[in-house]
């Protein structure tokens, strides 16, 4: 069994759980806030994009680790 491939798969697979849940929760809260107060979407946009990118970055770190495992060792 090739441990490299297994490691790369596990890195990305397990590393995608957290950001997925986090992004879903964040987006649902943003939608709730907009539904409650449609004029808030302008104020909400910038902090939401910021939060989105910060959370997604964790998933990107997992992707980079798995790519390094696959292609650089």
């Amino acid at each position, binding site marked *: 069994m090739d441990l490299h491939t297994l490691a790369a798969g596990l890195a990305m697979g397990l590393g995608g759980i957290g950001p997925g849940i986090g992004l879903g929760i964040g987006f649902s809260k943003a939608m709730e806030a907009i539904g409650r107060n449609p004029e808030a979407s302008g104020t909400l946009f910038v902090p939401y994009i910021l939060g989105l*990118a910060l959370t997604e970055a964790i998933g990107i770190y997992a992707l*980079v680790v798995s790519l390094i495992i696959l292609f650089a060792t």
Partner: protein
Amino acid sequence: MVHVDIAAERLFSIGPLTVTNSMVGALLASVLLLLAALWFGRRASLVPSRATSVLELPIEFLADIVRGTGGTRWRRFAPLVFGIFLLVANWLSLLPGVGTIGYAARGADGKEYIVPFVRAAAADLNLTLGLAIVSFVSFVGFGIWANGVRGYLKELLVAEPAYMTPLLTPIHVISELSRLISLSMRLFGNVFAGEVLLATMLALTTATLFLLPLAFVVPGIFFVLELLFGLVQALVFALLSMTYITLAIAEERQHSSNDHSGESPDTAAVAAEHGSA
């Protein structure tokens, strides 16, 4: 399977300097921006024409965000410059010929693969790390400029209740240093993964004749995704740099009771109006 290289491939050497294909890509991005600046600058007038008003849309959008989130106004040139350059560097992988036109080389396992002449500039960790270092130096520099070296270090190393200091100091220092890594890795990961994704989707749909009609649709979808992600990542890099700078400057002033540094200029102006009326 597609051959991907995390490090940018070396094209040729000028003396001790190696020129990699992502450097060529960054040069291409700069040339494109210069040409656009020259072309639009020639048409500048008080009443914007159709072409310049199209360009003013994203600039106004960014300027509004910077004015609202940032503090005083003159600091807006840095994030805008970051964002615009990164945008072109992020979107380079979508131009025809980037990543596809190259020369053939033989890999370690004997299979042939292509070394492209031009690679998306932000798909090289060197570029993103360099930009992250610029961002780091600028927010440390602004913190020192605003609060003095003692003020900046005091904010960083001393916590409010004195007994929490040995606990919080390493956390503060590490969180400030990790901004370097997170900024560079975020941009690199997004652009590089986008490139790999596009190449993989193309390779998948052109593998058999049966899937060939999909080869026009599926990479097109990922193309749009790459466009969106390039835009979002450039925006996020610029916004985060600006947020760090604002945090570094406003840290000292948070302890005063009449602090208005976190509010946008509009609400501060309204508050001043109500106060004087």
